[in-house]
């Protein structure tokens, strides 16, 4: 059911062209933050307006869209954004990673490896990896253009000096093709290794901050670290209690007020597919005999 009062995927064609130009520039200069004239969207800033605009500019009527938030298709904001495009674009939607041609995500990269015919769109709250070291936009842009990234390592140095390890657990900064330092959006650092060398196009949209950036397929992406304190992707030291997977990123769920908890895959589609294949975890319901 489409809403005829609006253009396909809400934005008018002139705005989409403007966003596509920014996307092309972003693809051409991987990791560089391209300013774009972000539009007011009918959802609040900070709730995915950047991702929604990028998705709107990329969607075609033939696309199949998947929207996830925290890895899950059924979280409220994912539902809301999916409905928005069903209503304004009439596009097919899916919860299956493999079936989607375009995936909009907040805070996760799907567990299932992406393909060359897929686009992953990230929602980005703060695109500037140097922001909390230097609050001034005019200064951080200069630092990027002059490749002055020493300060970023000072932050990592301070982490190790204080905690014995780099205590950045998400939105872990990366260097793209040996040039730009980039914020991968608040994905857990567990997902960082999936950023590099991916066959899919990865697009990042920050609506409030009016920035777009991109990783073209097979881009080199290196998580910042020290030689003697190398980057390590980490996750909870458990298996999924529903599907038994030992390699997926897990959510911790509190099950009672006596300290009971369970760990389940944050990627709901991945977990369901494994269970459909017969995988079982510690707390899977007993098979009906």
């Amino acid at each position: 059911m489409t809403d005829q009062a609006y253009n396909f995927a809400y934005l008018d064609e002139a705005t989409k062209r403007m966003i596509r130009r920014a996307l092309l520039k972003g693809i051409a200069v991987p990791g560089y933050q391209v300013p774009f004239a972000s539009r007011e969207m009918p959802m609040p800033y900070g709730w995915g307006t950047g991702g929604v605009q990028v998705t709107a500019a990329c969607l075609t009527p033939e696309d199949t869209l998947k929207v996830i938030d925290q890895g899950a298709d059924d979280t409220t904001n994912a539902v809301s954004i999916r409905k928005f495009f069903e209503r304004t674009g009439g596009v097919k939607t899916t919860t299956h990673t493999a079936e989607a041609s375009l995936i909009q995500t907040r805070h996760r990269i799907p567990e299932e490896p992406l393909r060359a015919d897929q686009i992953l769109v990230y929602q980005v709250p703060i695109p500037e990896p140097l922001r909390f070291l230097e609050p001034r936009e005019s200064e951080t842009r200069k630092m990027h253009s002059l490749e002055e990234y020493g300060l970023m390592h000072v932050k990592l140095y301070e982490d190790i000096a204080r905690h014995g390890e780099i205590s950045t657990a998400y939105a872990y900064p990366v260097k793209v093709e040996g040039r730009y330092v980039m914020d991968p959006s608040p994905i857990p650092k567990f997902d960082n290794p999936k950023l590099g060398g991916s066959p899919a196009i990865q697009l990042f949209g920050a609506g409030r901050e009016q920035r777009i950036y991109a990783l073209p397929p097979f881009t080199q992406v290196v998580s910042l670290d020290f030689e003697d304190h190398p980057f390590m992707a980490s996750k909870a030291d458990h298996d999924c209690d529903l599907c038994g997977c030992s390699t997926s990123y897990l959510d911790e769920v509190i099950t009672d007020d006596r300290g009971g908890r369970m760990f389940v895959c944050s990627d709901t589609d991945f977990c369901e597919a494994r269970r459909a294949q017969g995988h079982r975890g510690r707390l899977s319901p007993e098979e009906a005999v």
Partner: protein
Amino acid sequence: MKDLGNTALLQVAGLSKYYGTRIGCEAVSFDLWPGEVLGIVGESGSGKSTLLSCLAGHLTPDQGRVLYNGRDTVTMSEAERRVLGRTDWAFVHQNARDGLRMGVSAGGNVGERLMAVGARNYGAIRGSAIDWLGRVEIDADRIDDRPRQFSGGMQQRLQIARNLVTGPRLVFMDEPTGGLDVSVQARLLDLLRGLVRDMGLSVILVTHDLAVARLLADRLMVMQAGRVIEQGLTDQVLDDPQAPYTQLLVSSVLQV
């Protein structure tokens, strides 16, 4: 050991800077040789700080040339100038707070320049930081403390370590001992003199304190109202001043 090359490290010609119609500094020319310490003395308002800012690239002069190793630092791009600023050059501020990151540990402060030029081994960076803290007489166990917890003299020594860790060739110093107690000053001067000699640094030192100039500088330039009115070897200028203004300056210090 001084590297006595036969070309000047810094060649300054006809440097002028105006604030509206007021003269900041005017028609300043001099050469600085490798391993040489040049003192710039004069009262406050004489233009010595303006001159230093123009030389270090913090201010853009209105006229004149500044050649560093033959490259014009006035016309070079900001990118190149900033690279110089974190490799070959160093700047020691009068107020240590202007030259330190107060929210970053002492080790992080010293390590920043190393990381800025590509050091990526935590252990090695920390090793250099400990070494440098030692050289400026700060205990190694203070490495993870923030400069806020340091005394004024320690902050200044930390600033010096942070600047010298990458082995710069040219150091700009703006009243490095200003605002410190006399006893603290003496210790710092001693330290600076040793470092300058050991590392063969070229230094441009701005000070209003002739005692500091006498201890550190090989050569002196005396400034008044934005112009250089006398220059020469330090002992020569201080013991046998020619210009009346210099005579006044020297006599006032002798009274102290």
